[in-house]
């Protein structure tokens, strides 16, 4: 069900610059008038039932609406009515047609980011006041005059509004417990300062931007494989040496496959998996049950922070191809059993026949700890749908080295004892 209320006022689009260049010449004006209209997105996912600005409860009209995590539904805090948006999987046919995908199909929320202004100004439909929303961190704001909740539902050119949102399922208390349990298993060698400053209650619910991709591809691989034909041992002094004989083959494999809901990071800060970050932690809590994502409604974000998408489809094509190559390699792996001495792939290619890109906000409970001496930001992240937890706990190097030296010394002692005993 979707709400069908119409807000009393019209929201204003992001404010334009008062000066937009010199006036056009007559020829330019005529050319602009004759030009074809701008092509729309391949999949239009705009939630038409919501006007920009006020998301009203369909029963009582209140804008005090937020997500109720235990039911994954929107709840009106005024009359307690609950409802939810439609699943995008059925609404936009995202679960079908992957076998027939051609070219690059991009949903409206995944289109190229053309604006970099995070701050948009909206006019409150309740009282007419101008309210500023910083879309880099939030998609809702309360009008400071009349307390209405204003929502960013209109497609913005800065990548802040996705096609779909997957609501939080895990409550904050459940997330805190999971983070506490994760850290408590890693106390002995944890950095003393981390142990002292660890406050899991500081966990933050954040919607992170991802691009969810359906793709149809063909991958091909060429390499060498070896099959053992004989094995024998020869005496060399007191030692026996094992020798092998083998046939060497040129091996090629190709496979056509489709992938459904491959999920990649849509923010550059999260997509950097370099040694100086712990972004791999957030990556590890994938996958999400993206099939349950619902149409965009910024009321799902009330009370949570959000991060804005800043990567386009073009930026992520190499990431898609890389992941498709890996998937293809895993698919052909089972056909290599005959090469008992192994296979060395030397060349590969992937032909992406078709892909469909949808942008989504996915829910993460995130605890972060900044380690000052190494300037490293450590994350403990909880998948707010499945509960999968992963983290990075700063270590005490002296304790770790002491433990390693203790084990090494014990082993060396045993080795010395054996050598003396057998001498």
């Amino acid at each position, binding site marked *: 069900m979707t709400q069908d209320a119409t807000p009393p006022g019209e929201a204003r689009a992001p404010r334009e610059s008062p000066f937009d260049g010199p006036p056009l010449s007559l020829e330019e004006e005529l050319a602009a008038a004759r030009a074809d209209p701008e092509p729309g997105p391949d999949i239009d996912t705009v939630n038409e039932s919501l006007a920009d600005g006020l998301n009203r409860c369909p029963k009582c009209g209140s804008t005090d609406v937020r997500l109720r995590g235990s039911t994954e539904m929107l709840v009106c805090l005024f009359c307690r009515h609950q409802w939810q948006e439609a699943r995008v999987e059925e609404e936009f046919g995202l679960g079908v047609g992957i076998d027939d995908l051609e070219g690059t199909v991009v949903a409206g929320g995944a289109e190229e980011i053309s604006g970099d202004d995070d701050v948009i100004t909206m006019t409150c439909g309740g009282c007419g006041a101008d309210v500023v929303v910083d879309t880099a961190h939030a998609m809702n704001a309360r009008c400071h005059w009349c307390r209405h909740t204003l929502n960013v539902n209109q497609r913005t050119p800065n990548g802040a509004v996705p096609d779909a949102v997957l609501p939080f399922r895990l409550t904050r208390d459940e997330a805190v417990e999971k983070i506490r349990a994760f850290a408590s298993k890693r106390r002995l060698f944890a950095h003393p300062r981390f142990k002292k400053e660890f406050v899991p209650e500081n966990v933050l619910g954040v919607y992170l931007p991802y691009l969810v991709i359906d793709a149809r591809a063909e991958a091909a691989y060429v390499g060498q494989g070896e099959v053992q034909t004989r094995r024998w041992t020869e005496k060399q002094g007191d030692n026996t040496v094992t020798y092998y004989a083998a046939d060497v083959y040129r091996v090629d494999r190709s496979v056509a496959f489709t992938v459904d809901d491959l999920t990649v990071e849509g923010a550059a800060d999260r997509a950097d998996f370099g040694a100086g970050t712990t972004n791999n932690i957030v990556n590890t809590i994938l996958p999400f049950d993206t099939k349950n994502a619902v149409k965009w409604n910024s009321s799902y974000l009330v009370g949570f922070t959000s991060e804005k998408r800043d990567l386009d489809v073009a930026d992520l094509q190499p990431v898609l191809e890389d992941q498709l190559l890996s998937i293809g390699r895993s698919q052909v792996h089972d056909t290599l059993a005959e090469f008992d001495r*192994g296979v060395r792939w030397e060349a590969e290619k992937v032909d992406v026949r078709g892909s469909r890109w949808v942008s989504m906000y996915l829910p993460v409970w995130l605890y972060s700890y900044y380690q000052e001496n190494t300037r490293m930001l450590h994350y403990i992240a909880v998948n707010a749908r499945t509960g999968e937890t*992963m983290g990075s706990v700063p270590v005490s190097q002296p304790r770790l080295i002491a433990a390693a030296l203790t084990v090494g010394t014990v082993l060396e002692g045993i080795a010395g004892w054996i050598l003396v005993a057998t001498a």
Partner: protein
Amino acid sequence: MIGEILWATSGDEAPLWLLAAGPAGAVATYWSLYRYYRNTDKSHAYERDTLISAQPVQGHREKVRHISRTRDSDIDGDNSSNHRERVQRLE
């Protein structure tokens, strides 16, 4: 581990193997603990955790040569299980 050390004493190189047990154990302990705390090696296993529908794999093999005598027990540079190690891209 101790069993392996005892087994290693059967050859001439046994003393070397045994003396390396201490440093090797120390390094292994350090790295296993470090990885347990920091999880630097973890990432999303999209090859396994994504819905994939594949056609039957096509391919063939062609014998190119024979190795009649080698001490190597397997092929050099086996990367068949390391799916994320990229090799030369063909266009």
